[in-house]
Every structure is written in C-alpha cells, then in structure tokens.
C-alpha cells in the first residue's frame, strides 16, 4: 500500500481551486501584448539575425530562480525549525509555472510568439499569485522605460 503524503491532496485541491479557467485578463499585459513590438518584427526592421531577443536568457534565469530547483533541494533540506514559511511562499514551482503558462497562453497569448508569450504568462502568473500587483508592475515599467530611453 503506497503512502502518498496527505499534503498532496491539499495541494491537488488547491490547484483545482485556482480556477485558472476563470482567470481574468490583466489590462497592463493586454496593452503590452497589443502595443509591444515582438523580436521577430524588430529583427526584420533592423536586419538583425539573432533568433532570440537579448532578454531571453535573463527571463529563463528568472524562471529558474523562482523555482529554486524543482524539488526544493534548498529549502526542504533544512530542519523544520529553520524553515521559513514566508520564504517558501515566494517560490514559484517549475511544474506549476509551466502548467499555468500553458493555460494562460492558450487563453490570452496564443497569437504572441515565443519568448514574448512566456514573459507575458510569467507576469500574469506572478500577479495572480500576489507576488506583486499590476500597479506595482506598471510603475516599475514606467521607471525602467524612462531609464532606458533617456538621453
């Protein structure tokens, strides 16, 4: 008789309750989707050959950092007393992220090429999970925009 950790049932229910089918669009991201210029178009305009935008790998790294290693070899190996539940909440497990990415892309970002779609799905997931909110992201985008586009 195999013992499955009962926490799994909790998690399973939680994932089901996330009701991804009832997710809503994020207007900030819809804006980016409609107005943003994708790498394929930029390449064509500027005659650049590189198949990937310069931020592709930093995006991958962000996804990896959020996952902290799929099986949580970092946090889970600490003794219970040393584990920090707040820290654990901050992780965005790789399988969960990919599952949501598949669903969000299908629902909102199907027309967007890769890796722009991965980026939009990641931002969407992070907002849904309360890792940051839409206003914070909008403000930070403005800041970054000014920084990059100032003389």
């Amino acid at each position, binding site marked *: 008789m195999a013992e499955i950790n009962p926490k799994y049932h909790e998690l399973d229910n939680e994932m089901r309750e996330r009701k991804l089918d009832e997710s809503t669009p994020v207007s900030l991201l819809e804006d980016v989707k409609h107005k943003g210029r994708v790498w394929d178009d*930029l*390449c064509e305009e500027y005659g*650049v050959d590189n198949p990937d935008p310069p931020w592709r790998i930093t995006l991958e790294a*962000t996804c990896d950092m959020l996952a902290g*290693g799929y099986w949580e070899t970092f946090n889970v190996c600490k003794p219970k007393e040393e584990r920090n539940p707040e820290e654990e909440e901050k992780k965005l497990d790789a*399988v969960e992220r*990919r599952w949501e990415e598949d669903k969000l892309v299908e629902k909102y970002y199907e027309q967007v090429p890769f890796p722009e779609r991965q980026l939009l799905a990641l931002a969407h997931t992070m907002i849904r999970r309360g890792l940051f909110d839409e206003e914070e992201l909008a403000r930070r985008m403005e800041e970054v925009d000014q920084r990059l586009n100032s003389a």
Partner: protein
Amino acid sequence: MAEKHKPAPMVDEVSEFEVLEIAVRELAIEKGLFSAEDHQRWTEYMHTLGPLPAARLVAKAWLDPEFKKLAVEDGVKASLEVGIDWVNSMPTHFGTPSDYCNLRVLEDTPKLKHVVVCTLCSCYPRPILGQSPEWYRTPNYRRRLVRWPRQVLAEFGLQLPDDVEVRVEDSNQKSRFIVLPVRPEGTEGWSEDQLAEIVTRDCLIGVAVPKPGKTANDPRPVRPAVNPYHH
C-alpha cells in the same frame, strides 16, 4: 583605401517586452524572491550553454567504441570529456536547479529510434545541449508525441520503417536525455569535427537524423497538426 568597417546591425529601440522583462525581474528582486547576485551568476552560466558539447559527445562515440560504451553506461562521466560537468556547475555545486545530474545517453540502432519529450513541463538537458527550442515546449509537441509519435515525427520530416521500434523517452524525473543517433553512411574517414558538425540539436532530441551536408536544424513553421491536441 581600406573599406570602413561596417558595424553589425543592431536593434536600436527598446520594446515594451524588454521593459517588461526588466520590470518583472527588478520587482522580484525587490520583493526578495531571489537575489540579484544569484540571478546574474545563473545568467552568466546559462550564456555558456549550447548544443556543441553534445554534438561532440556523439562524434566521439562514433569514433571510439570504448567511449560509446562509457557514454551509454555513465552519461555524466562521458560529459566530462566534452568539458561539461553536471555536478560542479553553477550555482549550487551539486547540479543545476531543474537539470540535476543524471544524463542518460540513448543509443539508437538500425532497429531502435529514440525521441525525447517531457510531457509534464519540458525538462531538457541544458548543461550539455543549451536552451530548448520553442516547439519542444508546446503542448502540441508534448501531448502528441507520446500518443502519435510517428505522425509527429513525420511533421518533422522523419519517416521510419514499420519494423523500427520508435521509443519515446518521457523525461519526467531526474534524468535528462540526449539521443546518440546511428552514424550515417557517407562519413567514412571523417574527423571528429566533421562528424560533430552534422549532429544538430534536432538530432540530439531525436526528431531528425544526421546526414552528410546537413549542419543546421530545419526552421519550424507553424503547421496545423495532423492530430491536433484538443483540450
């Protein structure tokens, strides 16, 4: 009079997507989800990764039966000989997050063709093969390859005789896989470099077979699926 050196073309504008990526990352760091230092180290490491070491591993295996044996028995040890250390890479020194340290090299024979997929999430042997291609990550590939492998392979232009065993390797746990294809005809007397050149990333995933003269992956146009994935 020497010709003026023309600068390589560059994309001269900042797109919203680039801004978004930076904003997401900076917010994440500000919220303490990870540190800027860890992220930078990881990014630098990832920039070093690509498919060449895996291609060389295959070329070496073709040239040396003893090395081929080692590759099949102990992929991690064999990787060291092409300069890839699955264990001591950044940032943990016990393997990279989500790539782990168990490379398995799948040896094709004239009667056995391997092709790799990760149905759950698109795990990929990044330390030796670099970043995964877009199509590898799509539900279209992941859900259909296990179910209709020959149809999916046909879409990639690969047809196999009925009596060849097509073995789909579903990479769902800690092992990561590359395919060691059959050495093609017409390569007698070739050097390791020449052989490595025809072992493309698609050959290492298993959706293509190496051919003399073919040194690049096919471009993948978006095509309607023969058996589309229905949700």
